[in-house]
Every structure is written in C-alpha cells, then in structure tokens.
C-alpha cells in the first residue's frame, strides 16, 4: 500500500524539522498537538480507570512528548504517511500510557460501564466457571471465523468483546444504527445456527 495524500505541506515541513533535530520543530509540534496528546491521556485515564490526577497526567504528557520527539523524532519518523499524522501520535501516546500502567502494576482493564460486567459475579465465579467461559470463548472464536462475514465478525467483536456501542461501531462503518442492528441481528442468527455454539446458547 502506497503513501496516500494524508500529508499536507505543513505536516511534511514539521516532520522534516523534527527529523533534522531542529528544535523549532518541537515548539511547532507542541503548539499544534499538545491538546491532542493530553486529551488522549485523559481518555486512557478514564477508560482504564488509571486513577491519575492532573499532576500524574502531566507527567505522562511529559513522557509522551519526550518519547515522540527525542532522537530526532525517531518514534514519529517511522510514520510513512499512510495514516493521518494525528492517528500515529495517538498510537505512540497510547503505548506510553500502557507502559506507565504496567509499571505501576495496574492491569489495563477496561472499566467502561457494561451491564453484564458484574464485578460481584466475577469474584464469585468458580474455577470451573472460568474454564467454561474460556471454552465458550474458543467455540465462539471458531464460529465467528467460520460463519460470519468480515464486517459481521468485526462488529460482533467490537460490540461484545471490546465494549463498543452500536452507535460507535455504526459510525465507524459509516452505517445507520438501524443498519448496524440488522447486521448484528443476522450475525447472531448465524452464530446461533452454528452447531459449535448451539450447546452454549441452549444452556443459557
């Protein structure tokens, strides 16, 4: 896949400055992207329940900026213009956040409200329950691979495994919520009809 037209001349010039190690590039980069970087950190904080206060987030911000710009913008320099520059920045910022979460020995576990994500229930689960769930997941993975179209599989994974809402997935696919509802309905019907999953569903 070749580079696309996602590189405007301003971004191109900025990347050139960063790669040449010109410090003017740092100031331009920060004035343009500091809000984007900090906002991403805010969202990781919320999403993973990291419990960072403003001072913590400013520390993460510093780490992210240093990671993005040091060594002549090495981390940024691997960007080839296939995706938007902003998305590439998000990717690096996210990795800095995850590193910090790991260092502080917090497991990055999504905390989005999810009606079925009942913590009390998790703690009551027996080993056998975990094993059953793992088996079910394996069967589901297989069924998803075997019977769903790529879009159906992606939608099912995003909604049920990654905690996205219908509306979010619909907007990513450029579909209406109604059309997304239909797509998921058909996907679940296929999963239900698939033999490998039938037992798990009947028992629920």
């Amino acid at each position, binding site marked *: 896949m070749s580079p696309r037209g996602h590189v405007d001349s301003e971004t191109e010039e900025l990347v050139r400055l960063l790669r040449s190690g010109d410090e003017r590039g740092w100031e331009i980069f920060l004035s343009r992207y500091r*809000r984007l970087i900090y906002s991403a950190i805010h969202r990781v904080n919320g999403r993973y329940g990291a419990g960072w206060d403003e001072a913590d987030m400013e520390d993460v911000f510093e780490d992210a900026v240093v990671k993005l710009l040091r060594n002549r913008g090495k981390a940024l320099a691997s960007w080839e213009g296939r995706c938007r520059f902003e998305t590439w920045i998000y990717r690096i910022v996210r990795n800095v956040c995850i590193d910090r979460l790991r260092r502080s020995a917090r497991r990055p576990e999504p905390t989005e409200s999810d009606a079925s994500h009942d913590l009390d229930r998790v703690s009551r689960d027996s080993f056998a329950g975990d094993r059953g769930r793992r088996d079910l997941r394996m069967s589901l993975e297989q069924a998803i691979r075997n019977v769903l179209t790529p879009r159906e599989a992606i939608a099912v994974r995003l909604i049920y495994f990654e905690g996205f809402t219908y509306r979010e997935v619909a907007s990513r696919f450029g579909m209406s919520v109604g059309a997304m509802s239909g797509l998921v309905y058909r996907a679940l019907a296929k999963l239900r009809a698939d033999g490998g999953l039938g037992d798990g569903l009947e028992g629920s």
Partner: protein
Amino acid sequence: MNTPCDRTELVPAYAEGEMSGEERRSFEEHLASCEECSRALEQYRSLSGVLRDAARSERPRKTSSDCLDPEVLAAYADRSLEDDERAVVERHLANCPRCLSEVAELWRIEGGSSHDPGELAAERALARLRGQSSVAIVRWAATGLTVVRDFSETVFGAGTAEVWPEPAFSAVRSSQEEARLSWADGAGTELRCSVALVRGRPHLVGRFGGERETLARATVALVSPEGRWGPESPDAGGRFGPWPLVRGRNRLTLSLGGERATFELAIEVEQEGRP
C-alpha cells in the same frame, strides 16, 4: 404460515437502548403485538449475555501469523484506506483479535472533549528534551498595595506592572535568561525583581527605588518553603538578594512602615531538575 416480520432486525438496537424516544415507544407498541419480535428479543438478550460473558475470559493470543503493519491499522482506524485495501484489512481484522484490538484502542482515544495541559507542562517537556539540568518556571502575583486578580494576570492597584517576558509565567532555562517583573506607582516608587539561575538554582534579586525617605524606611524579606531571608534594608542602591527560591510559593514582603501597607509579591516557581 405467517410472513416474517420485517422489524425483527431492529431488536438489537432496541435491546441496547440505541433508539430515540419515539422509535422506542413505537417499537414497544409493536412488540406487544408481535410474537416473532418478542421471541427475537428474548433470544437476543440471552445470546448477547453469553457473548459478553465469554468476553470476560482471557483474550486469545495471537491468532494470525501475518499481523498487519501498525500504520496500515492506523490508516484503517482513520478511514484513510481505499475500498479494496479496506476489504483486505477487514478480512484480517475479522480473524485477528490482536489487530482489531489495536484499532479499537485508537478509536477509544481519538475525538472526544479536548484538554489542555497548559504551557507549563509543555515547557517542562521541552526542558527534558533539551537535557537541561534545571529550568525555573516563574509566575508572579502581588497583594498589599496591589490587586491580584489571578496568577495569570498581574494587575497592580496603585501602579502598573510589567512582566517580562510574556506570557504571565516565564521559563528561565539558562544562566543567560531571567524572568523579570517591574512595578511603578507613577510617583517615583518602583520595584524590580528578577529570577535567574545561579548554579542551576533559581535566585531572586531585586531593586527598590524611590525617594530617599521612602527608601530609608523600607525593609525586604523573603519567605520560601525552605526558609526565610531578611527582613533587611535594601543597600544604598536599593538592591537586595540574591535569595534562593524553591519550588512552590515564595513570598517577598516589602514593608514601607507607617501609613503604607505591606507589599507582598508571591513568586511561584516550578523547577525541573531531571537530566
């Protein structure tokens, strides 16, 4: 045999609370009279519960040996791919939880409300990049003879103040730089302060100017989080300091005694000492 209901596909949107108020009311009326949709709703709730329950087990490890280039995934996430490329990526994502998770992470952190870390945090990051062993970031505020609105706006009641350089805080990065504040009441009394790095630590030096009589009455003191300097009289030229400043609120008090109120200048210093 009944014709299949054409609204069953809306069951997921209804069950997930993704309908507007009016759509919802209309669908609920329909549900009351449509056995097929009622049954589909029951099945949907059961199946979605099973799926979400399964999601709580550990995500399978890498399931594909040909994971996609991170930039291609990022390009998919921001919808920059051509249709044919997108289809290729979607075929991979459908079977690769790891790559899909990477895309999902990007979607989670993009967009949404905007937060600004402020210029101070950006300055600190730049100081680290430059490998500076020390940077003092100075903000000024004054009370007493003066009116303080907030730290970002230095407005002196009786006189006018000038903070250099702009903006309201100053970053001092080397021994060649300093942050300065000067105040004058327009009747010949003035105070100048500057913060400079001395052996890598910020220090305050100042000069008080005015009529000899006023000068003779003046005493100056600095209280920092680490100690107290003064009160003492400025020298014959009105100079005082250098006094070390430490991170946090440092208070300079200028007392003219008698009828005039104490002048207090708060100097907030943020130091960054990381290599």
